[in-house]
């Protein structure tokens, strides 16, 4: 019975400690090219760029930014990426989506597409590029299972780096209104003495939260 109590205590300790996350450093920058503002009946859509594998953003990041824009203080109306892309099919597919604002008139000047944009109420398209990757890792950890029990011993550490850029297009006027970039990095640790205890630096989540907060200010600030 004693080993059982010890295991439970270790698992409880691990669960408690794992809620303590590693440190994340985030930098956000904004470039404004034109004034913005959004009416209560207008919305934004957050789209990932899918034409370039190297800079393709994770779906999780796109959803995170969308959800953060749609909630909390200064929330704005958000239409999901899939709903928008389906509604505008086939004009925002990976190989047909406009790459520059100079391509926008071809879309917004067609009555059938302009009517659709009006009906779904999208004012701003936010294109996201960038991703999160592991920049370094070290340490060693080994686990073993025997008839007497199981356990791990060692220490792992890794560093993740996130770099994302959001380009904001005003669909109504067919112009680029600015960019918001969010860079984050952080080191995660996982010491293990019988039970591994991860201290995860939530780098991607940090980059997402910072970018979404800045985008809210950027879009709603009428300047």
């Amino acid at each position: 019975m004693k080993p059982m109590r010890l295991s439970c205590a270790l698992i409880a300790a691990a669960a408690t400690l794992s809620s303590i996350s590693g440190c994340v450093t985030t930098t956000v920058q904004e470039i404004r090219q034109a004034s913005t503002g959004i009416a209560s009946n207008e919305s934004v859509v957050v789209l990932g760029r899918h034409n370039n594998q190297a800079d393709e953003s994770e779906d999780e990041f796109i959803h995170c930014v969308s959800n953060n824009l749609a909630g909390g203080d200064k929330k704005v109306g958000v239409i999901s990426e899939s709903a928008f892309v389906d509604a505008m099919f086939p004009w925002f597919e990976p190989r047909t989506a406009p790459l520059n604002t100079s391509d926008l008139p071809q879309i917004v000047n067609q009555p059938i597409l302009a009517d659709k944009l009006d009906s779904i109420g999208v004012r701003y398209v936010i294109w996201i590029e960038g991703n999160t990757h592991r920049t370094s890792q070290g340490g060693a950890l080994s686990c073993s299972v025997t008839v007497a029990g199981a356990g791990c011993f060692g220490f792992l550490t890794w560093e993740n780096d996130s770099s994302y850029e959001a380009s904001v297009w005003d669909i109504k006027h067919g112009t680029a209104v600015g960019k918001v970039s969010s860079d984050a990095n952080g080191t995660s640790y996982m010491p293990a003495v019988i039970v591994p205890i991860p201290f995860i630096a939530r780098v991607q989540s940090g980059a997402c939260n910072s970018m979404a907060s800045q985008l809210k200010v950027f879009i709603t600030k009428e300047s």
Partner: protein
Amino acid sequence: MYRSHRSVVGLCVAVLCALLEACTGANVQMEGEIPTPLVNRLPIRVGLYLEPALVQYVFEEKILDHGDWRVEVGQMQAKLFHKIGAAMFLEAVQVDSVAPNRADLDAVLAPSIAEFQISIPSQTRSDFYEVWIKYTMRLYDTHGTLIAQWPLTAYGKANKEDFGFLDNSDKLAIRQATKTALRDAAAFLSLRFATVPEVKAWLNSRGSTATSGGAT
């Protein structure tokens, strides 16, 4: 103690099964819908000839050390071409041959799959599952005379990072990549149909270019 032995053995078996599962490829049945393309209709009535080889198309490949891969893509073809046809033309109806001899139709569109390829991340050392579908598109008059023939290459990819470490992540990723490729085919057919030189010439000869196929 006996119970804890059983738990450990069970855990090991589960982990082994998960690892083996990851090496056995995927068997994917394509399903779902293709959205209706937002394009201007061409003023023509078209018959769709969907050959049995197209609507029953199954891709199969054994990838060394990565198991058997099978994608049943045929049943999506009928949905795809009916959806595009209904959006692109005044009328699109299925016909039994490339020469239906029907006065109520202007032409017959006959797609076929010339090639289907997949690649998985371990082959390309990237994060992406990829799918290529090469179609051969043919447009006939209603007596079966070829008006135009052109290749239509569709491409789709899916990032493995979006599917985590699930047992069926291979299956989900290949399904997503195939779905993207099918949408790509629909996109390029609906936007570029009227710009294929032989098709454009045929449409011009009929005076049918006023609202030509989507892209303006």
